[in-house]
């Protein structure tokens, strides 16, 4: 008997064990899928890298460092010690001045300039203009101005992934390109999501002749090589950022429409829809309240598999030179530039490709994981 009271007490103390909702079960299945979890982590890291990176990076993505064109990736700071004297010599040659003495001490330099005539102190601009040196100032004037001693700072910079053929920091460009690629992927997916869900739900719910006609139209569109129309659009109406994702999204809604239609056809015959009909809810209301929310599962799965497809399509366009315009960039543009310089600077294709491929992998793994989690029958 005491056992019985204890049990009741325990049950009263703890809330009744909640029944596991479908979502919680799906979540648990997803978390058990190691590939999907790893994919999510990688995707989150890359997104963070691309979104926050450009603010933290010391280099603007479009800043051209003329002294560091096509520098290979390195953990060491640029400029290299051995290159300093040469760089200074070049600058002074341009200023038509002789270099008498040049020394570097830690992060500061000291140079003695000599000429036959008095030297204009504004000649320090020639030194300042180089990427290697900063804040040059005259510390001593000798020989009635014919000799100047100039001191300043050595501008030390890090190019972890090297610089491109125009002397721009590759890592910052990968971050900015990633922003564009991910953004195009998300926005175009959203466009195709809206069109596809609306079209498919209406076709499936209307049924009969309307459904037949709408789906025949999709069939006709399916057999068109649509990428060509996207290319034509982009070529003729300019490489506008908005146009690119609208065009891609408008092309990629067909699969979504088919999936949503099939699901809607099945949902339509369920009791809760019939109940809503019996209660006098209008077609629009049933679609909004009952059909679309129940489509969420397959749609979510499809969206995660759609984003990599669209990123791929965007980089395909960029590769053909039809993507976003310079100085803005995307992963496709970077890979295309890398492919052009593959012999002289292979790192230019390796680094963007790593980020690009890792993102695609992550998204594919997440999509597969979600599919297994939300629909355990279909594997």
């Amino acid at each position: 008997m005491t056992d019985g009271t204890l049990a009741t007490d325990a049950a009263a103390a703890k809330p009744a064990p909640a029944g596991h909702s479908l979502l919680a079960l799906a979540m648990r299945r997803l978390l058990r899928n190691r590939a999907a979890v790893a994919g999510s982590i990688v995707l989150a890291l890359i997104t963070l890298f691309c979104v926050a990176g450009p603010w933290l990076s010391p280099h603007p993505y479009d800043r051209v460092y003329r002294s560091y064109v096509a520098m290979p990736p390195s953990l060491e700071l640029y400029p290299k010690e051995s290159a300093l004297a040469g760089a200074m010599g070049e600058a002074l040659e341009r200023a038509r001045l002789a270099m008498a003495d040049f020394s570097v001490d830690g992060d500061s330099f000291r140079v003695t300039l000599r000429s036959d005539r008095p030297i204009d102190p504004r000649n320090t601009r020639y030194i300042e203009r180089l990427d290697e040196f900063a804040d040059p100032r005259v510390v001593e004037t000798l020989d009635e101005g014919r000799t100047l001693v100039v001191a300043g700072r050595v501008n030390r910079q890090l190019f972890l992934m090297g610089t491109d053929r125009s002397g721009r920091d590759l890592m910052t460009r990968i971050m900015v390109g990633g922003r564009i690629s991910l953004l195009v992927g998300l926005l175009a997916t959203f466009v195709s999501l809206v069109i596809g869900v609306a079209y498919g739900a209406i076709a499936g719910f209307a049924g009969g002749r309307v459904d037949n006609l709408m789906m025949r139209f999709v069939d006709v569109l399916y057999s068109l090589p649509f990428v060509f129309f996207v290319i034509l659009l982009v070529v003729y109406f300019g490489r506008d950022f908005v146009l690119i994702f609208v065009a891609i999204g408008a092309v990629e809604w067909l699969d979504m429409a088919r999936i949503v239609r099939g699901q809607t056809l099945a949902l339509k015959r369920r009791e809760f829809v019939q109940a809503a009909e019996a209660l006098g809810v209008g077609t629009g209301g049933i679609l909004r309240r009952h059909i679309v929310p129940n489509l969420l599962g397959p749609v979510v799965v499809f969206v995660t598999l759609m984003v990599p497809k669209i990123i791929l399509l965007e980089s395909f366009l960029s590769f053909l030179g039809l993507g976003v315009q310079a100085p803005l960039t995307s992963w496709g543009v970077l890979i295309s530039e890398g492919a052009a310089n593959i012999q002289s600077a292979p790192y230019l294709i390796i680094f963007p490709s790593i980020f690009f491929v890792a993102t695609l992998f992550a998204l594919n793994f997440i999509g597969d994981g979600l599919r297994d989690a939300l629909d355990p029958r279909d594997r």
Partner: protein
Amino acid sequence: MLTYTLRRLLSAAPTLFVIVTVAFFLVRFAPGGPFDLEQPLAPQVLDNLRRAYSLDQPLHVQYLDYLGKLVRGDFGPSYVAIDFTVGEMLRRALPYSVTLGLSALALAIFGGVAAGVFAALRQNSAADYSVMTVATVGVTVPNFVVAPVLQLVFGLMLGLLPIGGWGDGGLAHRLMPTVALALPQMAVIARLTRSSMIEALRADHIRTLRASGLPGHVIIRHALKGALLPVISYLGPAAAALVTGSVVIEKIFAIPGIGAYFVEGALNRDYTLVMGTVVTLAGFVVVFNLLVDLAYAALDPRVRYD
């Protein structure tokens, strides 16, 4: 079967019509024209040019005119490559693209099916996992990444194969572009084949064959017959993807095929050349889809012919 074939043939016609119409008006409504040169032409010259190419006619007259000529197989003159008709240009480029496309398709089908069957027969073994990992890589990595890497490794570092060009059309020149073009589709087909083969091997009639003690290769043949159906229905999209991919591959390997003409024509606003390439490529995809549908109907008795 005959009526089904005829009906499918008839339904392909409106598709082609839609393609021609959309492409025609898309090209015409775009800003800029083929005669917008850096140095503007004299108005008199421009007028004469426009008259010579019937660009001064109302749009619907031009459209009907183009349709009429197209039906007779006349693609019209190229606006930019003077003295050439689009028909001539396409005829010259077509052999390269067709050779490349068909060999890539063959490689994708045979390679993909073989890999898929191999993996399915050893389900959940190390061999299965490694084949499927390679297939996942193939699906994920686009061919414009694969192609330069192939060029770097086999062309530059090992010096085994020519980096680009068509040469005499020999195997050495064709090998890298074909592999790069086929790889993504081969990977998709391998995944498809594996999953449908696994399902087919579990089917009742296969179990009966096993129980009857038939040798392995007979069982595989019977299972494959059913397992290949999803692969066949995928061939339509695969062909479309190969046509699209060939644009990039032809560019990377400097092959003078149709894909190269398409990009060139679009950038130069060579109306007739763009139309010609789009119609040709779309025509290929449509005809191929038709063939796939017919093959599917012939192979799967469950498909009704009405």
